[in-house]
């Protein structure tokens, strides 16, 4: 059984999670900052929109992403015609879908972290002649380390655990879209419980280690600054 143990789905899962985390961090940073600083009437609307993936069934989200990215749609057609990139049943499509699916897990901790900062500290940076970008980079981000770690690691872990959206948008193409969660589902379907056990145990172990590292880091941070 172990000879036929294929690590490719795990590699794909981690590659997908890594790329999604990186892209979402860059995209979410300005959004989270804006949401934390604005009093605009658009704020509740944007917050609700950002949080939608938490409450929507993955099948609903997957269905709409599939429709939006298909070659017959404006977006899907645009990417296929202009860049020759297929967005459904491809790894690229999975990354795009994962970015929608995991968006709240990156935006919400970052927004919460920024909102908890002392407003005067940010103003002191502006008064020191620093731009908003310099302030975010040099003052805001280093002072929300626990929130930053939570955002990065939970987004990563959440993407690794993705199933419904991945299956709907990517299907199960070996080496392309067949990630670990989909591989486990297929093993159970064909009653290969032994393999399913190994894959699942690996997922449980990795997920626990990831979560433990977040909580341990946050515990150490609080201890360092005398909160505990």
């Amino acid at each position, binding site marked *: 059984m172990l000879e036929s143990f294929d690590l490719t789905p795990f590699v794909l899962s981690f590659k997908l999670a890594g790329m999604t985390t990186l892209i979402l961090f860059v995209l979410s940073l300005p959004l989270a900052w804006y949401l934390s600083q604005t009093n605009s009437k658009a704020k509740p609307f944007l917050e609700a929109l950002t949080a939608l993936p938490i409450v929507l069934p993955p099948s609903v989200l997957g269905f709409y992403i599939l429709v939006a990215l298909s070659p017959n749609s404006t977006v899907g057609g645009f990417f296929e015609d202009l860049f020759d990139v297929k967005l459904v049943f491809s790894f690229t499509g999975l990354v795009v879908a994962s970015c929608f699916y995991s968006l709240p897990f990156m935006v919400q901790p970052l927004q919460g972290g920024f909102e908890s900062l002392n407003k005067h500290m940010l103003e*002191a*940076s*502006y*008064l*020191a*002649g620093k731009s908003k970008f310099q302030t975010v980079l*040099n*003052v805001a981000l*280093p002072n929300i380390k626990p929130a930053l770690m939570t955002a990065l690691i939970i987004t990563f872990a959440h993407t690794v655990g993705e199933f419904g959206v991945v299956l709907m948008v990517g299907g199960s193409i070996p080496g392309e879209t067949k990630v670990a969660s989909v591989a486990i589902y297929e093993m159970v379907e064909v009653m290969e419980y032994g393999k399913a056990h190994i894959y699942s145990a690996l997922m449980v172990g990795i997920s626990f280690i990831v979560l433990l590292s977040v909580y341990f880091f946050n515990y150490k941070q609080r201890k360092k600054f005398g909160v505990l």
Partner: protein
Amino acid sequence: MIKIDIRKALYGSFGEMQLSVDLHIKKGEFLALMGESGSGKTTFLRILAGLESATGEIEVENIHWLQNEKSLPPQERKIGFVFQDYALFENMTVEQNLLYVNHDTTLAMQLLKMTELTALAKQNVQVLSGGQKQRVSLCRAMMRKPELLLMDEPLSALDPVMRAKLQQEIKQLHDTFGTTTIIVSHDPSEVYALADRVLVLEQGRIVKDNLVEEVLRGKTEGLHYETEVLQLSEISDTTIATVLVSGELLEVEVDEAVKIGDRIEVVLNPAYRGSGS
């Protein structure tokens, strides 16, 4: 010369009111801003710093910081701002807090020496005491080489001994750099020890603008200070209380019913002024 003529609608503790300040400040002058909570003192400082919008005009050494709708952002105004809650960059050391503003190491070292913080230069600011944090905040504000130094109740969270020490350091920094300064304070002894001129703000308008002695002078000929009794002693059936006024320890005769920690009013002869000034 700094010319200020600003207006802003405010919703303070007295309901809706109009902040309207028309003021000229000479270069190097040390102004104290007094007034009840909600009278617009903090908003006035924040407008000067560019942290809040207003209409009107602010002209500093022939440069318009505010002119009708056109307003320079805080980054382009040469302002030093000392917040009541210190607002230090908590991810940095004392030295880094100063050098973040300006990479002038010589100035940073000079300021740290003047405020006796040299030994703490490499310490993270989170481990400092309140007094030390406020001194770092003061040094950081001076690193900008500001045209105008604004201090919003900088000493109100500190104990009396630390307040007295910082008053002397603020005075020393002002004497050395000659920075035009505005301090918001509720404490007459602090105002008396530091300022040349006092403005009293009431419901958004300046109701008094005069030399410190004139504004602080009470109904009698003396100057009135409210202070805490630090120590009591008995000398020939007379109760003597030790109090802190204008950064100096004074011994005054009090009623025998007075206890340590009581707040009493001390009236000084106008001719008396502490050695810190």
